[in-house]
C-alpha cells in the first residue's frame, strides 16, 4: 500500500462514500483520476490491479480516488436498497465532485466491466476530460446474465442445489455475493453504452477483451467518439479464479497509465483532500452506529471499527481476511455483519492482515499473501490496538485462511472466542485432489507453524518401509481400496503430521478452554474428520468446542443460501459469547433488560 494513500469517507454525511486517495508526494497533480470498480466478486478480484494502477498514476503526478459505490464496499447502504442504479451513478458524480473540490483541474475516469458501463452513462454529466472503458459490459443485462450463469456453475461445483424457482419467476438475480431485487434488475437491464448520447468525453480509450467479440453496435457507438481501441489481454486470468488466483494484467495497467500520460495536460495544480475518518451510519434495522478508520499501534495495519452508541459488551469481534479478500469480506459479508452486530450492541472491527487490502506488508516482505508470514503477530497487534485494556477480550472470526489464522493466534494468545468457518490450513507442498481449501503453491506456511515437510516425508517413508517389513498384513490393509482402508490410510498419514494437523490444532485449542465454533460445509467436514474419528469424538465432547455442518453451503460464502444458514448461527454465537459491559450488568441487576442485543435478536 502506497505510504501516501489516505483512506477516507466523502460525500453526503447522511450517506457517506468510502474511498482511498493516492496523492503525488508533493501534493501537486496534473489532474484527478477516478477509479470506478466493477461489481460483486469482480470488484474483489480487481482490487489489487486497481491499487497498482493507482500507484502507477500517482507516480505520474495524478491524484487518484479509488472509491466504493453507494451500498458497496465500505460505503453506506446495501445492495437491497431501492434506486440502486441512480445511487451508483450518483456516487460517480459525487466522487468526481470531490476530486474537483480537492483541487484537480482535470478529471479522468477509468471503469472496468459494469463500472465502465456506469461511468460511460454519467461521463458527460461529470464533464470528464477522458474516459477509459476497460473490458466494458455492453449492458447491465449482459452482466446479470453472465453473473447468473457463474453463480449456478459455482453452486453446482460446491454441491449446492439450484434454487427451486428460476430467476425469471422471482424477477431477482443472484450473483456471486449479491442479490438484486426485481426493480434493480430492471434498472440494470436498461443500462447500456450504446444508448448514451454523444459525446462521452473528449478522449476515450476502449480496452476490449480478445476472448470475447464485442457487439458490432458497441463498436459502432464508440467509433463516434475520439476513441482509441486497444486489446486487453489477461482479463480471463484476472477474473477467472476468484481472488485466490487472480493475476494482475500489468500490460493493461501500463497501457492505461501511458494513455493518460499522453492525453493529460502537463500543467499542475495543488491538491488537498479534507479527510473524514469517522462517520455516523444506520445499521440494517436503523440503529445508529459509528464507523471509524483505525490503524494498529505497532504495525500500522488497516482496520475499520463499527461501534454502537451504547455497547452491550466490552468485547470486540475481529473479522479477519478470507484468502486474499480484503477487510470487506467475501461478497461484503464482513461489512454487513459488522453493521448488523453493531446494531445489536457489539463492537466490531474488520481488519487487513499485513500485505492484504489496506495494510502494508512487513518490511522486506511481499504483500498479497493468503498466509502472510507473521499473521499471529498481526492479530496480536490488532487485539492490543482495539482492546488496549484487555487484549484477550476479543472474539476472532475468520473464513478459510482467516479461520486458520484465528485458531493459530488463539493458541499463542488468550482470546475470548474463535469462530472458524471452513478453516483452510496451508497445504504441505501441494493440493489434494478436489481440495479447494489448500493454499496455492506460492504461499508459504506461516512462521508460527513449523511443518518441516521434508523431514516429515522422510519419516513417513521410513515408517512405511518398516511397516511393510514387520507388519505386512497391516500394510496390505492400508493399500486395499474401500472406505475402511481409506480411513486407515488417512489415520496413518495424519499421525505423521502430529499436532499441526487441523483436528489437533482445535484439540489443543479446546485444551486452553477457548470457546470455539467451527462451521463446515459437508465436504470439508469430511476432510476434517477423515482418519480422525476418535480424536474428533473426544473433541466434540469438550465443553468449549462446537462444530456445525451446514448442508447447503459453499466454501467462500458467496451464495445467499450459505449466508441465510450461517449468519444467524454466527450472530447467536457472538451474542452468546458477549461478555456484558458493566452498565448492562448494572441494568440487569436492577431488574432491567437482559443483553439488549439478545432481546433484539429474539424479536427478529
Amino acid at each position, binding site marked *: 500500500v502506497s505510504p501516501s494513500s489516505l483512506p477516507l469517507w466523502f460525500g453526503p454525511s447522511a450517506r457517506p462514500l468510502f474511498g482511498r486517495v493516492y496523492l503525488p508526494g508533493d501534493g501537486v497533480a496534473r489532474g484527478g483520476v477516478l477509479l470506478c470498480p466493477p461489481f460483486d466478486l469482480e470488484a474483489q478480484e480487481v482490487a489489487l490491479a486497481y491499487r497498482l494502477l493507482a500507484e502507477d498514476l500517482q507516480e505520474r503526478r495524478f491524484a487518484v480516488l479509488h472509491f466504493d459505490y453507494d451500498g458497496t464496499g465500505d460505503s453506506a447502504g446495501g445492495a437491497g436498497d431501492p434506486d440502486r442504479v441512480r445511487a451508483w451513478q450518483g456516487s460517480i458524480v459525487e466522487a468526481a465532485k470531490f476530486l474537483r473540490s480537492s483541487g484537480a483541474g482535470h478529471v479522468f475516469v477509468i471503469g472496468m466491466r459494469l463500472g465502465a458501463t456506469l461511468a460511460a452513462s454519467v461521463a458527460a454529466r461529470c464533464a470528464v476530460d477522458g474516459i477509459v472503458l476497460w473490458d466494458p459490459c455492453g449492458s447491465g443485462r449482459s452482466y446479470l446474465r453472465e453473473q447468473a*450463469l457463474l453463480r449456478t*456453475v459455482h453452486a453446482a*461445483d460446491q454441491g449446492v442445489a439450484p434454487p427451486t424457482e428460476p430467476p*425469471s419467476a422471482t424477477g431477482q438475480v443472484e450473483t456471486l455475493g449479491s442479490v438484486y431485487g426485481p426493480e434493480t434488475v430492471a434498472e440494470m437491464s436498461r443500462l447500456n453504452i450504446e444508448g448514451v448520447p454523444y459525446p462521452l468525453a473528449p478522449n476515450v480509450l476502449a480496452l476490449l477483451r480478445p476472448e470475447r*467479440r464485442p457487439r458490432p453496435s458497441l463498436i459502432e457507438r464508440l467509433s463516434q467518439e475520439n476513441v482509441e481501441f486497444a486489446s486487453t489481454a489477461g482479463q480471463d486470468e484476472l477474473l*477467472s479464479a476468484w481472488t485466490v488466483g487472480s493475476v494482475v494484467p500489468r500490460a493493461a495497467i501500463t497501457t492505461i497509465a501511458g494513455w493518460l500520460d499522453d492525453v493529460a495536460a502537463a500543467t499542475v495544480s495543488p491538491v488537498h483532500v479534507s479527510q473524514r475518518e469517522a462517520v455516523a451510519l444506520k445499521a440494517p434495522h436503523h440503529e445508529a452506529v459509528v464507523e471509524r478508520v483505525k490503524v494498529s499501534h505497532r504495525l500500522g495495519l488497516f482496520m475499520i471499527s463499527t461501534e454502537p452508541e451504547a455497547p452491550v459488551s466490552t468485547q470486540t469481534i475481529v473479522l479477519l481476511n478470507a484468502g486474499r479478500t480484503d477487510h470487506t469480506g467475501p461478497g461484503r459479508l464482513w461489512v454487513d455483519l459488522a453493521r448488523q452486530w453493531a446494531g445489536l450492541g457489539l463492537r466490531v472491527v474488520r481488519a487487513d492482515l499485513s500485505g492484504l487490502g489496506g495494510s502494508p506488508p512487513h518490511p522486506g516482505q511481499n504483500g498479497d499473501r493468503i498466509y502472510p508470514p507473521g499473521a499471529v503477530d498481526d492479530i496480536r497487534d490488532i487485539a492490543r490496538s482495539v482492546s488496549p485494556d484487555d487484549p484477550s477480550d476479543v472474539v476472532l472470526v475468520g473464513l478459510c485462511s482467516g479461520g486458520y489464522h484465528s485458531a493459530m493466534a488463539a493458541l499463542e494468545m488468550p482470546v475470548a472466542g474463535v469462530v472458524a468457518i471452513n478453516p483452510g490450513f496451508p497445504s504441505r507442498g501441494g493440493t489434494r485432489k478436489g481440495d479447494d481449501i489448500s493454499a496455492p503453491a506460492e504461499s508459504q506456511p506461516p512462521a508460527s507453524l513449523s511443518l518441516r515437510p521434508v523431514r516429515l516425508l522422510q519419516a513417513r517413508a521410513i515408517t512405511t518401509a518398516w511397516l511393510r517389513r514387520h507388519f505386512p498384513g497391516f500394510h496390505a490393509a492400508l493399500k486395499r481400496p474401500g472406505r475402511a482402508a481409506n480411513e486407515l490410510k488417512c489415520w496413518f498419514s495424519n499421525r505423521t503430521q502430529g499436532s499441526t494437523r487441523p483436528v489437533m490444532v482445535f484439540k489443543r485449542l479446546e485444551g486452553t478452554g477457548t470457546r470455539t465454533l467451527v462451521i463446515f460445509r459437508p465436504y470439508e467436514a469430511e476432510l476434517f474428520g477423515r482418519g480422525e474419528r476418535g480424536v474428533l469424538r473426544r473433541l466434540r465432547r469438550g465443553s468449549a468446542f462446537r462444530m456445525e455442518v451446514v448442508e447447503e453451503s459453499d466454501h467462500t460464502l458467496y451464495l445467499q443460501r450459505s449466508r441465510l444458514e450461517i449468519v444467524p448461527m454466527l450472530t447467536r454465537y457472538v451474542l452468546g459469547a458477549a461478555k456484558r459491559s458493566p452498565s448492562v450488568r448494572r441494568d440487569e441487576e436492577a431488574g432491567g433488560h437482559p443483553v439488549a442485543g439478545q432481546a433484539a435478536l429474539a424479536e427478529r
Partner: protein
Amino acid sequence: MEDRIRRVLSENAHLAVDPGALGEDADLYRAGMSSLSTVNLMMALEEEFCVEFPDNMLQPSTFQSVSSIRSALNRLASAGD
C-alpha cells in the same frame, strides 16, 4: 451443427483436451472447462447460432457436453419456429 459446436468449444472452452476427440456425452467440466469459460462459451454460442439462452437454461447442465449443448440449441430453434 456438431462441428460448429466443437469449433466454438475449441475457441472458447480452454479444455485440457482437443474438443474434436471428445465423445458427444463427455463431461466438459471434467475436461477442464472453468466457470468463466462457461460464460465465454455461452456468449460465443449465442453469437454463432444467433440465439439467446433463456434464464432457465443458464445452468451448468446446459453446457456440460456437446450433446447437451446441441439439445439446448435444438430446443431454442424449435421454440423459434
